């Protein structure tokens, strides 16, 4: 559901909006099964040292039936759907200028909803200062480029860590996610990707086929969208929400051929109930900690119940459930938790919420190695301003301003969060671990 300003700015008054210098949010292209991966040909560019990696990337893209170009020439009227800038071999900041400027030269010929994706290496402890600079610089390039792009185009980066190969399955899956319409509201983000196996036979259309996923807080909003998207990607879904939300919850369950579990996630036996509910479907593979509440109040006016209930639902429940699942030794468990940009940049009146969401980011990083021991991952997604029933209650003026803050100049949709979660929960993304991926349209504030 596009907000009314975005509709207005893309309607008959589009020229006026441009003339007045008003924000120009684009209608974002979102994933539909069967639709092309990108909106046009894909250019692969690299510095000299990264040429072998660029060749490998180009081969992967060609394997996806994309129209892959290695030169920036275009026929009359043709536009690039995406540009992949491979800098993974760059060893000196002065080495990258040619490749970067080539990309710059293509930007005016980048189609609406186009993509710029960098592939680079993360600075590692022990890097020489020159190497560290070459690697770290990419992040600033991506974040700045995200702010420069127009028409719903985005810039993101795959950041290889721990010697991960450029054509390893997780690097490839991350590249594909950034290129696709599934990342419509992800902009200006660098996602570290660790080593993983090679990309064999990945079913990109049904990446969650055969998986059993549990989604908490799934009766409405983002949780319901996660359940629907997981089902679309092939998972059997157990949807969880508090008993009073049961009517909406059962409707969601029945719409995704799933199972409804009426459960308060703060209950002491919540993890056991979740395991029991997933067992008939084949056992728990994916857990999405989406349940969350807000009880906003300035800290000066904060009462204990408001602080405590937010911490209990948004943070303590996740910790208790994760601890129990680790104790049970669930194999290859994929955990994705909902953080928030409020946990990164903070938000007035949300000390409780901000604490809980920053806490989620913290425990996700700490949980990652623990689940990795049994082949699992723990990641988080930090939504920015998402159009839901919850944010619809924010006063109109505040809401309108919040929508204009990101580079994409609009709020995201619940499905944008769902797509990111489904990506992180998929088998090919196994090399992405302990990360918090922002899905915020590149919100102005925070890293």
């Amino acid at each position, binding site marked *: 559901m596009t907000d009314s300003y975005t509709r207005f700015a893309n309607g008959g008054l589009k020229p006026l909006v441009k003339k007045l210098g008003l924000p120009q949010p684009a209608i974002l292209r979102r994933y539909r099964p069967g639709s092309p991966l990108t909106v046009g040909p894909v250019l692969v560019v690299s510095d000299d040292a990264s040429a072998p990696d660029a060749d490998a990337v180009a081969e992967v893209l060609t394997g996806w039936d994309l129209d892959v170009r290695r030169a920036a020439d275009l026929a009359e009227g043709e536009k690039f759907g995406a540009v992949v800038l491979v800098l993974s071999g760059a060893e000196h900041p002065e080495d990258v200028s040619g490749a970067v400027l080539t990309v710059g030269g293509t930007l005016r010929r980048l189609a609406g909803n186009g993509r710029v994706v960098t592939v680079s290496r993360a600075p590692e402890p022990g890097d020489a200062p020159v190497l560290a600079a070459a690697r770290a610089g990419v992040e600033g390039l991506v974040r700045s480029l995200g702010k420069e792009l127009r028409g719903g185009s985005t810039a993101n980066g795959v950041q290889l860590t721990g010697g991960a190969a450029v054509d390893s399955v997780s690097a490839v899956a991350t590249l594909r996610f950034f290129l696709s319409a599934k990342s419509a509201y992800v902009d200006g983000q660098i996602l570290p990707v660790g080593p993983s196996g090679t990309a064999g036979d990945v079913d990109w259309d049904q990446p969650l086929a055969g998986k059993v996923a549990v989604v908490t807080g799934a009766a409405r909003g983002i949780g319901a969208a996660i359940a629907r998207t997981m089902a679309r990607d092939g998972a059997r879904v157990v949807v969880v929400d508090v008993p009073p939300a049961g009517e909406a919850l*059962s409707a969601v369950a029945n719409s995704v051929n799933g199972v409804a579990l009426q459960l308060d996630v703060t209950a002491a036996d919540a993890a056991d109930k979740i395991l029991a509910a997933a067992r008939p479907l084949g056992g728990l593979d994916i857990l999405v900690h989406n349940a969350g509440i807000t009880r906003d109040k300035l800290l000066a006016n904060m009462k204990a119940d408001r602080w405590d209930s937010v911490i209990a639902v948004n943070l303590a429940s996740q910790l208790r459930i994760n601890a129990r699942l680790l104790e049970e030794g669930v194999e290859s468990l994929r955990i994705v938790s909902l953080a928030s940009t409020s946990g990164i940049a903070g938000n007035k009146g949300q000390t409780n919420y901000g604490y809980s969401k920053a806490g989620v980011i913290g425990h996700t990083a700490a949980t990652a190695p623990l689940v990795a021991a049994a082949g699992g991952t723990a990641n988080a997604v930090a939504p920015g301003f998402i159009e839901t029933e919850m944010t619809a209650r924010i006063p109109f003026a505040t809401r309108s301003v919040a929508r204009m803050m990101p580079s994409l100049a609009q709020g995201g949709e619940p499905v944008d969060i769902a797509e990111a979660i489904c990506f992180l929960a998929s088998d090919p993304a196994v090399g992405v671990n302990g990360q918090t991926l922002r899905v915020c349209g590149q919100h102005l504030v925070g890293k």
Partner: protein
Amino acid sequence: MASSIPTTREAVIIGGNRIPFSRAGKKYVRTSNQDMFTAALEGLVARFGLQGERLGEVVGGAVLKNSRDFNLIRESVLGSSLAPVTPAYDLQQACGTGLEAAIAVTNKIKLGQIESAVAGGTDTISDAPIAVGDRLRRALLQANHARSTGDRVKALLPVLSHPKWLAPETPDTGEPRTGLSMGEHQAITTAKWGITREAQDEIALKSHQNLYRAWEEGFFDDLVTPFRGLSRDDNVRGDTSAEKLAKLKPVFGKSLTGEDGAPQPATMTAGNSTPLTDGASAVLFGSRDWAEERNLPVLATFVDAETAGVDFVHGHEGLLMAPVAAVPRLLTRNGLTLEDIDFFEIHEAFAATVLTTLAAWEDADYCRDELGLSGAFGKVDRSKLNVNGSSLAAGHPFAATGGRILATAAKLVHARAAETGTPARALISVCAAGGLGVTALVESA
């Protein structure tokens, strides 16, 4: 188990679902029986992931039905997420409807005719049928069959001269053969057995306290799905007390006299009588194989059932006393006594119904003369009675009560058996209009 029961396979109870029960005229005012039963089914489908599944049969009914509800259960199935190739039929046995539906489907499962089934029921007082009087109905039908305008006018003319014919007939709980309401019938039985006001109020208080506690403990989290903004039974009072119940004025038996012609004290109040209620319930059954193939939980087996009727028309027996006769037959056939039962689920049409039932079983003369037993049938341990509340607190949407009780009983025996490691049994007893009683035996599986 007694050898008189032919060997068949088991019918197991997998789980149940109902909507919160609501006092008549409140939350479900604009809700039909079909809406409510469909909601109960949808919650059940969601709980057990049965979308698109072809079940063996869905059976249920409603006591009060509008003429549009002729194929109520089938229509509900068609409006649900179950496969439309799931057959269904309506059945009605007054307040015994829900439990009788369970007997019907479990017998088919036991015989191997079907693998899975849902039994349940629904009733609404808020959307009850209103009928026109017989004289107006005849006039309307005659006008409908008339071939000319003249004949049509002629058929309708008597209506104009008899405006009273236009008065609608609303359903009530009066017995067609005696004209007495169910409450007045029970009041006669209550007085006959000398049941006190205090004893009745105590049953009512326990019912509210137990049901309220069960809600607070989350017992109904996997038995009830909220509906139309209601997430709990709205009749239950966690804060009621003996004092509050004692203040209520009697509503039934106000003109009863003893054998000497002296007036008898009226003891039945709105507090110890079940309120008129709207609601629906559904219970999922299967063969053990069917449940295990789908990894569905198996809470209990539906062991056996027995129905009874009593001659209340000639005043020989109380209207709601039929379960008193059914239960001894049921338990004896299964080689059991009251001592072998862990949970007694005795439907509280009125608190006094429960008490007269218990009193009758304890009365050696009655058991000998009326039930043909050698002596008193036995005493029910009150700590095992309606431990998570019953109809006085939850309310009683007639056909939905059987399903409510069955799902509760199945969950109780399952939990008890898991806790103690030994099998647990529940006895279910439901009295019904027309002098009927439907009873069943459930055992942990």
